[in-house]
């Protein structure tokens, strides 16, 4: 594709553009990307291709069967009758955190111990970080490091990774650096707060993993609270 010379466009740039260039370059070179995870990328790519083929085949069958289904359901003398859609199961809001006599604490798991949050949604912790699989890609072990230097465990923080469809979201993330003992996690959603669960390794390592399953992918911020009800870490 032919485009104008960027250098020519630079001449007409506002004064702060140069400063922005330097700032962006400095921020970009502040990280050291890992090696390309080629095997994981290709595995995911193959899954995407398989799913797309399945979808295409399914759509093809649906196209072929739809006229038959229409005739069967409506019959030849079905003038004017309105077919109602199937009942929609409404998402039930998860109750929000309420004061309890003894505040919950994270479940302590051994390194490598598998925790099944939902079918296909499995998490486990090692000293290096968080590992998990999701229902769409159960063969793909995913990983977030807590030791690669890219999170600052000295400051409170919480992250989120998710795999979602319009009706279900499999949520998980790291939390770290807060004061006290993490107790509860809530994710804001259009249906109200979604309460999750916490996992930690033995020995109070200063970080842990939270997870939840939500009935919507319209999600907001995350708040982890400690056993006293104070904010341990939050992600707006």
């Amino acid at each position, binding site marked *: 594709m032919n485009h104008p010379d960027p250098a020519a466009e630079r001449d007409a740039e506002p004064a702060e*553009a140069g400063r922005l260039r330097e700032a*962006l*370059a400095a921020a970009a070179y502040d990280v050291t990307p890992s090696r*390309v995870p080629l095997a994981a990328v290709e595995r995911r790519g193959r899954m995407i291709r398989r799913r797309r083929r399945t979808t295409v085949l399914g759509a093809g069958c649906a196209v072929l069967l739809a006229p038959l289904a229409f005739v069967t359901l409506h019959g030849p003398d079905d003038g004017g009758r309105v077919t109602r859609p199937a009942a929609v199961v409404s998402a039930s809001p998860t109750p929000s955190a309420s004061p309890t006599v003894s505040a919950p604490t994270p479940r302590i798991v051994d390194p490598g111990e598998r925790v099944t949050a939902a079918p296909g949604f499995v998490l486990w912790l090692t000293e290096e970080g968080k590992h998990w699989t999701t229902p769409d890609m159960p063969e793909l072990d995913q990983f977030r490091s807590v030791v*690669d*230097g890219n999170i*600052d465990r000295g400051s409170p923080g919480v992250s989120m990774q998710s795999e979602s469809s319009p009706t279900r979201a499999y949520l998980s993330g790291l939390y770290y650096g807060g004061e006290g003992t993490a107790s509860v996690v809530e994710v804001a959603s259009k249906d109200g707060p979604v309460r999750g669960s916490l996992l930690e390794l033995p020995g109070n390592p200063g970080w842990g993993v939270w997870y939840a399953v939500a009935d919507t992918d319209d999600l907001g911020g995350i708040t982890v609270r400690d056993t006293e009800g104070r904010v341990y870490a939050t992600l707006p």
Partner: protein
Amino acid sequence: MPHETSAALPEHPDFAAYAGAAWARLVRTALLLTGDFHEAEDLVQTTLAKVYARWGRVPPDDVDFYVRRSLVNNNISRTRRRRVTHLLMPFLPERVHQSDRGHAESVESRAAITEALASLSTRQRTVLVLRYWEDLPETAIAEVLNCSPGTVKTHARRGLEALRSHPAFAAAERPHPLPGARP
């Protein structure tokens, strides 16, 4: 019955070579788009996986454009659905080939630009990153975003205005360029 042709050759050896060569730069671009290193690597992995699934259909002479547009669209979808959100705090990654001189100032400066970029709309941020980091001309950005060059100009102007008035960007010292950073 619909079916896919066998034209796609995902095992094409060029994909590995392309991914290996493009990975670091894509992650850096994604970092500027997302503000979070882990989310950046996620975004690039997702993008490359989707590209791999269609590798045989990607025009060989236009791979960069295809991948860049896929990256940008995946990021826009991600932010629209709020599937992941941004950390509005500086991260302290491992560094290589960098002296400690001016370290605190540069960290502060990078935190400032991260915070300032987070205040922009996704499209404003995308335009500024493509224009001032990827060094793309406005016409190319318009093709990536599937909009007119005039819209790109508007996003760029408003984005720069927003940065100019942002306290973090206004107060930050000039950053010190790093080796490899383009002027």
